């Protein structure tokens, strides 16, 4: 971070932001404007700053972020669909001095992996679960997910999600916040620079709690899916602010008692 740049008029500038060293040079496969890559950047920035590259182990999910191990230059393990938190539990129990996080989407964590997630948090496993909630199955073609908002049009709900038939969106973060094993539960976003700064603080806190063996930390990131929502990236930001945050309000759901 100490590189300098000399302008034509002789002003010397210092580098204040660059691509985190812990990211590999592989370009992301995500669609333009996808929130996944921002979360990857933030996670790896924190790993860089805390200098824990050699002792962090990530668990990649099934979904859009299935190739997370291509981009993060740390030890990664691929898990079966929905079972990332269970695999992370195993890794943490065998290697308790490593820092373990699982990175999961909403189709992974809130649908097929609901049982694994709830029981992992209930056991108070000392891991960090990063949950990306964009309300849709992005990878398979924009189908309805458990977190899809009522009335939201997806490829399997062309007239909008009917709550009488498909039920209500699952607020799994509120659910796990009720469990005694959860130590720190928060809902963040990546829709503007300040939200990204807050997310970075939350991830840093979560890794620090894990170093102190406090319990499960759960970070939900309300994200966008330009391809699945059939919007431009700039339109998705407006949709997030106007619609998604009404149902998924941002903020801490469970903070440690000092």
């Amino acid at each position, binding site marked *: 971070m100490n590189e300098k740049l000399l302008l034509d008029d002789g002003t010397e*500038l*210092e580098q204040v932001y660059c*691509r985190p060293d812990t990211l590999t040079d592989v370009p992301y496969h995500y669609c333009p*404007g996808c*929130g996944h*890559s921002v979360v990857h950047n933030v996670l790896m920035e924190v790993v860089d700053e805390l200098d824990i590259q050699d002792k962090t182990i990530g668990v990649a999910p099934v979904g859009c972020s299935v190739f997370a191990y291509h981009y993060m230059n740390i030890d990664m393990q691929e898990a079966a669909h929905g079972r990332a938190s269970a695999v992370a539990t195993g890794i943490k129990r065998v290697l308790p001095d490593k820092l373990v996080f699982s990175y999961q989407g909403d189709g992974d964590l809130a649908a097929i992996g609901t049982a694994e997630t709830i029981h992992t948090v209930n056991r108070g496993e000392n891991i960090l679960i990063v949950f990306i909630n964009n309300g849709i199955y992005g990878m398979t073609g924009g189908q309805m997910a458990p977190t899809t908002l009522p009335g939201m049009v997806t490829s399997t709900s062309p007239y909008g999600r009917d709550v009488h038939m498909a039920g209500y969106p699952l607020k799994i973060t509120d659910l796990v916040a009720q469990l005694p094993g959860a130590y720190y539960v928060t809902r963040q976003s*990546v829709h503007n*620079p300040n939200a990204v700064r807050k997310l970075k603080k939350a991830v840093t806190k979560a890794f620090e709690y894990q170093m102190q063996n406090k319990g499960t930390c759960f970070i939900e990131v309300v994200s966008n899916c330009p391809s699945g929502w059939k919007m431009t990236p*700039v339109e998705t930001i407006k949709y997030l602010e106007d619609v998604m945050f009404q149902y998924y309000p941002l903020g801490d759901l469970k903070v440690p008692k000092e």
Partner: protein
Amino acid sequence: MIKGTVIINAKVCKGCELCILACPQNALGLSSNFNEKGYRYVELIYDACTGCTNCALVCPEAAITVYRQAKPSKKSQIKSE
């Protein structure tokens, strides 16, 4: 005003325009050229950058490197006064 600048890696830019939305100085804009992947990439169109890193934080591709003038130390400020 503190001066800054950005260097954008046009090869990996996908032209999602999120950085244009985030820039408080409206200094970024889409180029009229395309990169190798066929996306219109973002470039600095006005020399108004203050190095606030907003664009780099929201850039999904981590394609933006930000440079900023060092803040003048309090001692040198007092001297110049």
